[in-house]
């Protein structure tokens, strides 16, 4: 049985000031197996973030439904942890308090909370920074905290919306390895949205390519590269072949986006 089932999910936004309604997402069907790492790849404005937000329950679909472990998603909840592109750590809480936010919200006792928080601080390599304010951290450290915060709830699925999009190239590479390392050790179902082709291939066991607006699934590419993956994989022939194929796919879509925008 699939862990996550997306059935005929579409999204249409009301027209602005009496204008035509805009369809951001055509009906999408997607089945995600347990412990799969899925990346959703598409040009900007293809509705990939909208799809992720619908899975998170932050937006309602215009048609269709999302099932997680057979239960319909109606609103956000701790079973779907989310990491955003923007820095969303609570600035009034320390790193440790941020990671413990969800646990506290569920009323878990303090001692249990502290143990879980400590283990996730360790997992994302932030030992020694537990009592720092978010403002005192670099972008990469903030996103590591955000990943730990989402994982601390032990969600059934982890949703990431271009989590490394605001980071510099080197930091992004390190973050990819860190997240992949966590996934290889702990096994988790992951849905990861990105517009970066290399990132999409490197992280995924399956890449879903989306078309230009209105978005739909254009292709579904399995990535059978071995684990554990090392950054040197990015220069291997198999990787390059996949990259060439996806680059062509995305290029066509990006050009279509550019054309519809210039009209």
């Amino acid at each position: 049985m699939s862990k996550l089932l997306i059935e005929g999910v579409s999204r249409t936004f009301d027209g602005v000031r009496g204008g035509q309604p805009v369809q951001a997402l055509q009906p999408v069907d997607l089945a995600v197996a347990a412990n799969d790492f899925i990346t959703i790849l598409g040009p900007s404005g293809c509705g990939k973030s909208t799809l992720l937000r619908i899975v998170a329950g932050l937006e309602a679909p215009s048609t269709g439904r999302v099932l997680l472990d057979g239960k319909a998603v109606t609103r956000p909840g701790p079973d779907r942890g989310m990491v955003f592109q923007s820095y969303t750590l609570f600035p009034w809480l320390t790193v440790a308090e941020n990671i413990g936010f969800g646990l506290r919200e569920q009323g878990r006792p303090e001692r249990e909370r502290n143990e879980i928080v400590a283990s996730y601080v360790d997992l994302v390599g932030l030992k020694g920074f537990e009592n720092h304010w978010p403002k005192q951290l670099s972008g990469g450290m903030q996103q590591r905290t955000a990943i730990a915060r989402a994982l601390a709830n032990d969600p059934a699925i982890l949703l990431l919306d271009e989590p490394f999009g605001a980071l510099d190239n080197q930091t992004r590479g390190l973050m990819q390895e860190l997240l992949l390392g966590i996934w290889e050790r702990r096994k988790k179902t992951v849905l990861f949205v990105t517009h970066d082709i290399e990132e999409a291939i490197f992280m995924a066991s399956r890449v879903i390519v989306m078309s230009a607006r209105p978005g739909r699934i254009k292709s579904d590419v399995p990535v059978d590269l071995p684990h554990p993956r090392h950054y040197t994989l990015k220069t291997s022939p198999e990787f390059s072949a996949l990259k060439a194929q996806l680059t062509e796919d995305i290029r066509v879509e990006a050009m279509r986006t550019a054309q519809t925008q210039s009209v």
Partner: protein
Amino acid sequence: MLRPLHPVAPGTRTVLGIAFFVLFVAFWAWITLGGHVNRIFLADPLSMLKDGWRLLVEDRFWLDILITIWRVFGGFVLASIVAVPIGIAMGAWKPVEAFLEPFVSFARYLPASAFIPLLILWAGIGELEKLLVIFVGSVFQIILIVAVKVGGTRRDLVEAAYTLGATDNGIVKRVIMPANAPEIAETLRLVLGWAWTYVIVAELIGSSSGIGYMIINSQSRLATGQIIFGIIVIGLIGLLSDFAFKALNRWLYPWSLA
């Protein structure tokens, strides 16, 4: 050379800040002691200090100062206790805002000083009336500013909290309130400054104590030295309370400055 937006060295900043005070007092001394204005209408700095000293030592003016401070803080605390929760409720729950916002916006423009005759009829000329003037003058302002700040809470933080399992009440208590606490404190600091204006107006009418009373009393005796001394005392207390408030905010919300 003055370059736009170029910072000034800390030492130079202090010197420049003090320099204006020196120039100001020098100009005041020059027009009064130099005989350029009639002494009846404007006392010179030296006789102002002499009058001030006499007020403090002989007329127990410090009692008036204390009573004015008590009125400002009493009325201000009362207004804050009522206004901050209402403002948070308006910012957080849109139906509450739709219900109260038009009235509060209207009430905000009612001048507190115009209420004084009415408040004297209702509450007499005792302490309650003074507190009410400050209350009326501050409460609607605080409600409105707090509501706007709370309404502007970062949506991505609210969404993040929802995905972490926060309930609707949890969002208000653990996101909206802490996220806006420093801004609310800053609003209160601002409104406290306005409360000082209201208290003096309240004390100018139907009062027998306080700094404002001393000022209106001095007017009938053409004691301009005392009037100026009273005004300077208000300014100094305002400055001190502002510093204290700022220090308190820095201590309470270190994360907003880190």
